[in-house]
């Protein structure tokens, strides 16, 4: 049968490809909506890129006018969009919060819970170096020597973890504490499975990272 090549080799792998896609899509959605950078999903990205390559090789074997070719191409383009947009969103955050991400990441690397992939980490470091040397050559070197001190800590931009986000609970989570600023009556709420809420990102940041809630 000529469509054998397009077929995934066995049942098990097929379920995985579908799950990988779903995971990537959720990761993309979360990354787009979370104020801070989230732990990377490099395994999923790599796995899907491999899948795409495999598919593309097979599509090229099909005649151009084959209906299947255009359907598969369309699906691959949709998946590529998700991956590109996901990676770009992460790079945007890395550029914006470069210094604070690098500081946090150094600590996370020690405990082995890094959020950035190796290449993202390298990108962040190079970005910071370039920014520093750019600022020095264009401005600092032109001013009197006693004003040339350069303090990176003054340039740090932090993501606003207090910003409000919409979420949907994937499973029931109880006892989310909402800080009450005007009084001292901190409020405690429960997130029932399937319910939707708007609240501050900070108290639910860990729930986003472990997949108990989905940002919408």
């Amino acid at each position: 049968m000529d469509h054998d090549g397009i077929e995934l080799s066995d049942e098990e792998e097929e379920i995985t490809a579908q799950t990988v896609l779903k995971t990537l899509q959720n990761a993309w959605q979360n990354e787009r909506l979370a104020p801070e950078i989230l732990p990377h999903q490099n395994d999923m990205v790599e796995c899907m890129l491999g899948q795409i390559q495999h598919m593309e090789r097979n599509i090229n074997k099909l005649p151009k006018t084959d209906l299947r070719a255009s359907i598969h191409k369309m699906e691959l383009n949709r998946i590529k969009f998700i991956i590109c947009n996901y990676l770009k969103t992460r790079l945007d955050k890395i550029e914006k919060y470069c210094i604070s991400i690098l500081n946090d990441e150094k600590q996370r690397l020690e405990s082995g819970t890094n959020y950035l992939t190796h290449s993202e980490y390298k990108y962040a470091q190079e970005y910071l170096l370039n920014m520093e040397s750019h600022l020095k050559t264009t401005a600092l070197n032109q001013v009197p020597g006693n004003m040339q001190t350069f303090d990176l800590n003054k340039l740090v931009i932090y993501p606003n973890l207090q910003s409000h986000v919409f979420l949907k609970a994937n499973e029931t989570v109880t006892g989310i504490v909402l800080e009450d600023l005007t009084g001292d009556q901190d409020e405690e709420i429960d997130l029932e499975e399937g319910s939707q809420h708007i609240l501050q990102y900070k108290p639910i940041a860990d729930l986003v990272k472990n997949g108990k809630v989905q940002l919408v």
Partner: protein
Amino acid sequence: MDPYEIEFIGENRIVSIIPNFSHDKIFLICGEFGPFRAGLPMNVPLWLGVMLKQKQKCRIVPPDWMDIEVLENIKEEEKRSRFFTKMPNEHYMVEAKLILGAAAEDIPRASEIKTIIKDIWDIRMSKLRTSMDALMKSGGNYGRLDHLTMMEINSVKPLLPEAMDELHRIKMMARKTMPASLNNSTFSQTGGSQNI
């Protein structure tokens, strides 16, 4: 997120189509679909349905809820209820827009259906504006929004979350400056204001 991205997510929903050609099962990354048998209904993702429709290779079967009577009931229920009612479909607006856009001739009484869906959307949006107003006036830092669809939630971004961020910032500033200004007054005053 942009509305087109919400639409993109909504396009993954499954719809029923009747193909006018026959073909073996097709194995996509998002699942396997088919076999295609001319004249027999089958399920495909919405993006594929619309694509086949544009190539004139299928008819789209109207989803169960895309029916005047069902929609009239939903509309009445939405009017009656103080809260948001559960929509028949998490992406009803996206599905309606795409199906009615690409395959209006496959849907009986398409233009009436379009009007009712628009009415339902309007009722829900005005409800949403009222509840946002109430939420902000109560000094809101938290709200529950069950049954709102993604497109509806997206339509109040960035206004609502940013207004809440702003309110939070003001409260933080008030809290920072309050102890200083209250330094020379008595503590009972702060105690009193908490109890209200």
